[in-house]
């Protein structure tokens, strides 16, 4: 059971306070979900170091000690959020400060046809059914304590719905900013893409401070309708001391095409659980990820692709460039159910270690119960190819520059997969800046 009963009772007490402050809101369907979540949290607790799912990431910094939920949002200016916004995208923008919607900084009017954006605290007409039908609809097991923690204390969030058959050209931007208030923040996103729609959603997690004492427990749920095409990008630009435990849960219907991009660019401890369920036939699902930890950073991408129905394909590519004393963890599971015949799944994890003190853990996994499948995975870890370095140096390129060229090419594969040009350029800049810092971080001098 939970190693730390004090933590759980702390959260239970905080929940009572939260509930009392809700006034009439305590009777809403959303609050029923919160109650279920706190009950589940009390039953299962938060993960401990003994959990197989947390083998390479000690959850203690995130799970021991109660982080008091941040109740009031800090001040946020347009200037402060500028670096985090993709300026080239003039589409819908929802800005959240410490988990609370900031209408003044958001762009939610003049939306393209067929797309609706709302905040959870002020849902528009017609969205109530969407919320009650989809929010926290998934049942999560004992290992998903942080998703339960988010649900128990969720106050606000982004709801994006796309009408059937509609194409939204511009990506919808959702910005979760921590103003540095210590404690627990609970960003929440729900995207429902109806049949035949097309959309792209960009979520950025950022901090205006170093983020000391800040625990972000985020949950995003995406429902991809039949034949819908959805791209989801997560950019982690937390403060250097921030802690993050995130969950992305995706449900896909037949003929859907879903692509997720995860860029772990800053944060002290970043844990991302990505779980996508391929429920219908002929789905194509792709998970991409790039992690660039340095210093004492710890990044853990824990992904599961669940093939429930036949004739689907999935592709997964996660890369890491690790500097300093940082630690990059990858767990990817392809789970093929017995009915999921003719599944075509490929998974790859590639890592470059750039310092003597960096560490990687890779667990690519196949769990297969169907016989007519094509499933494979690969994992490689090493250093830059000495021949390639030599080639460049023989042509007068300095060692540092040559390392830069080769690592950029390595990381660039994932940046290039972004569809929208403006977004791609934005991420390329962020990745480039971060890579310079990773390459410069050689850990402790020997």
């Amino acid at each position: 059971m939970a190693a730390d009963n004090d933590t759980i009772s702390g959260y239970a007490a905080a929940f009572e306070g939260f509930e009392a402050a809700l006034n009439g809101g305590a009777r809403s369907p959303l609050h029923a979900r919160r109650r279920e979540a706190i009950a589940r949290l009390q039953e299962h607790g938060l993960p401990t170091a003994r959990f197989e799912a947390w083998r390479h990431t000690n959850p203690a910094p995130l799970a021991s000690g109660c982080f008091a939920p941040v109740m009031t949002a800090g001040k946020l200016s347009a200037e402060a959020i500028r670096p985090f916004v993709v300026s080239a995208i003039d589409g819908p923008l929802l800005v959240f400060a410490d988990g609370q919607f900031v209408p003044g900084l958001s762009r939610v009017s003049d939306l393209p046809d067929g797309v609706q954006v709302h905040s959870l605290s002020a849902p528009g007409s017609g969205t109530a059914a969407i919320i009650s039908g989809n929010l926290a609809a998934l049942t999560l097991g004992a290992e998903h304590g942080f998703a339960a923690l988010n649900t128990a204390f969720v106050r606000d969030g982004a709801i994006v719905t796309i009408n059937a058959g509609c194409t939204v050209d511009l990506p919808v931007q959702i910005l979760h900013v921590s103003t540095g208030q210590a404690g627990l923040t609970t960003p929440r996103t729900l995207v429902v893409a109806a049949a035949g729609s097309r959309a792209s959603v960009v979520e950025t997690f950022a901090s205006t401070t170093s983020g000391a004492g800040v625990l972000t427990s985020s949950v995003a749920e995406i429902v991809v309708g039949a034949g819908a095409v959805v791209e989801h990008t997560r950019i982690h630009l937390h403060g250097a001391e921030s802690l993050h435990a995130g969950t992305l849960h995706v449900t896909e219907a037949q003929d859907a095409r879903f692509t997720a991009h995860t860029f772990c660019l800053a944060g002290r401890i970043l844990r991302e659980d990505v779980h996508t369920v391929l429920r219908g036939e002929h789905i194509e699902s792709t998970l991409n990820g790039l992690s660039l930890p340095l210093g004492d950073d710890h990044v853990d991408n824990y992904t599961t692709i669940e093939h429930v129905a036949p004739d689907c394909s999935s592709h997964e590519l996660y890369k890491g460039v690790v500097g300093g004393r940082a630690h990059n963890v990858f767990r990817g599971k392809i789970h093929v159910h017995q009915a999921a015949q003719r599944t075509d799944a490929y998974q790859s994890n590639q890592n470059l270690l750039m310092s003597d003190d960096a560490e990687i853990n890779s667990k690519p996994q196949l769990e297969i119960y169907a016989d007519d499948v094509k499933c494979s995975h690969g994992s490689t870890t090493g250093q830059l190819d000495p021949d390639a370095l030599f080639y460049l140096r023989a042509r007068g390129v300095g060692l540092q520059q040559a390392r830069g060229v080769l690592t950029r090419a390595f990381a660039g594969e994932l940046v290039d997969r972004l569809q929208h040009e403006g977004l791609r350029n934005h991420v390329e800049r962020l990745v480039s800046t971060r890579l310079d810092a990773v390459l410069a971080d050689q850990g402790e001098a020997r």
Partner: protein
Amino acid sequence: MTEPAATPAPEAALSDTEVLEQFAQRDYKEGFYTDVESDSAPPGLSEETIAFISKKKQEPAWLLEWRLKAYHTWLKMEDPTQRPAPEQWAMVHYPKIDYQAISYFSAPKKVSLDSLDQVDPEILATYNKLGIPLEEQKMLSGVAVDAVFDSVSVATTFKDKLAEVGIIFGSFSDAVKQHPELVRKYLGSVVPTGDNYYAALNSAVFTDGSFVYIPEGVRCPMELSTYFRINAANTGQFERTLIVADKGSYVSYLEGCTAPMRDENQLHAAVVELVALEDAKIKYSTIQNWYPGNKEGVGGIYNFVTKRGACRGDRSKISWTQVETGSAITWKYPSCILQGDDSVGEFYSVAVTSGRQQADTGTKMIHLGRNTKSTVISKGISAMNGQNVYRGAVQMQKRATGSRNFTQCDSMLIGDQCGAHTFPYITVRNPSSTVEHEASTSKIGEDQIFYCNQRGLSTEDAVSMIVNGFCKEVLKELPMEFAVEATKLLGISLEGSVG
């Protein structure tokens, strides 16, 4: 694939079904039971039981103390399967074992080490049924056989010949009496008493096993072999094997296992420790074909083994090869600790799960020394309701600069009720090492079967041929004596009534 899915070749489809049915109907071919009077300890585990075993074996006091220490460690340890679900890592499922219902000591009564004539004729008959005629092997095969029947060595051959070059090869209990300094120096040095639940249990109650010492610079002139056999119902087998290869020496060791058909679940928790000093090489080959349980999964051996080798010296090498076709549950990870610089670890495995068999097996390659190398080739075959897991750890520690690992895990599924799983754990703690892991999953294609059928091969022959081809990389690592047996075994396991 572009095979005509709409109009499947009727014979091929039918033959596949037939083959599958035959898997279901196959009986355990090695299933017979020899009635030998056993001098057994009453069921139950306590300090008294351990003292009883130690006394029966006339052990020195230090070994009894060592056993008791292991027992007390075990008492404090947690049964790995009793952990809550999120904390469980192994994919094996079985009912809780009642350790008090097991009898921890059983020795055949008529023990003689002088000549084969004095060996219980029934035991000899058993070996003959298994095709291990000791008296013939002595003359023909050039294989020294230390046959372990239940827990006590009943016959050891070729001892004199080996003794000429200074090799010590015999039962563990003899080694304790004759070479206590060697046993004491190396026992538990690779697998400590508290290493894991089953290793601790073994350390407390192990009854016998094999001991090998190869002196400096000696190349063992023959393959050493021990045939293990589980007999007597309700008797857990707790073997202990210790092989020490001194500087510059070489030894190839074969371990083969068969068991009589019994309806009780029999626990087997062996420990194998290998020590390779500078420039020494150890090759350890296993064929495991214990009773897997019946079609409903009743009975069958629980095979929870801890096998580990330490490449202590520079340029040493340990190579594991295993063919696992038996047991209801196989749970083992033959491992290499590559301590010496430039040392090499290898693991070649074929695991077949059919019926309701479960296998969670693989290896651990722990790279500690510089420029160490390891290779892992694993072939898993699942049929019927079998569940086959490759679980392997590769660790490059900080000092292991310039090290390399290559891992390849291939799975084959036969039928749509089985499972094939791959769970590698890769850790890299230095930037100059390279780790590569590849895994794939496939089935025997209808087009492949069709191709063979067309050329006059029956479906069963085709399956056998394809499976043997699939496993070739591993089978070729086996010594000659074993390769033949292994190919036959794969045939028996997968061809149903054929073979």
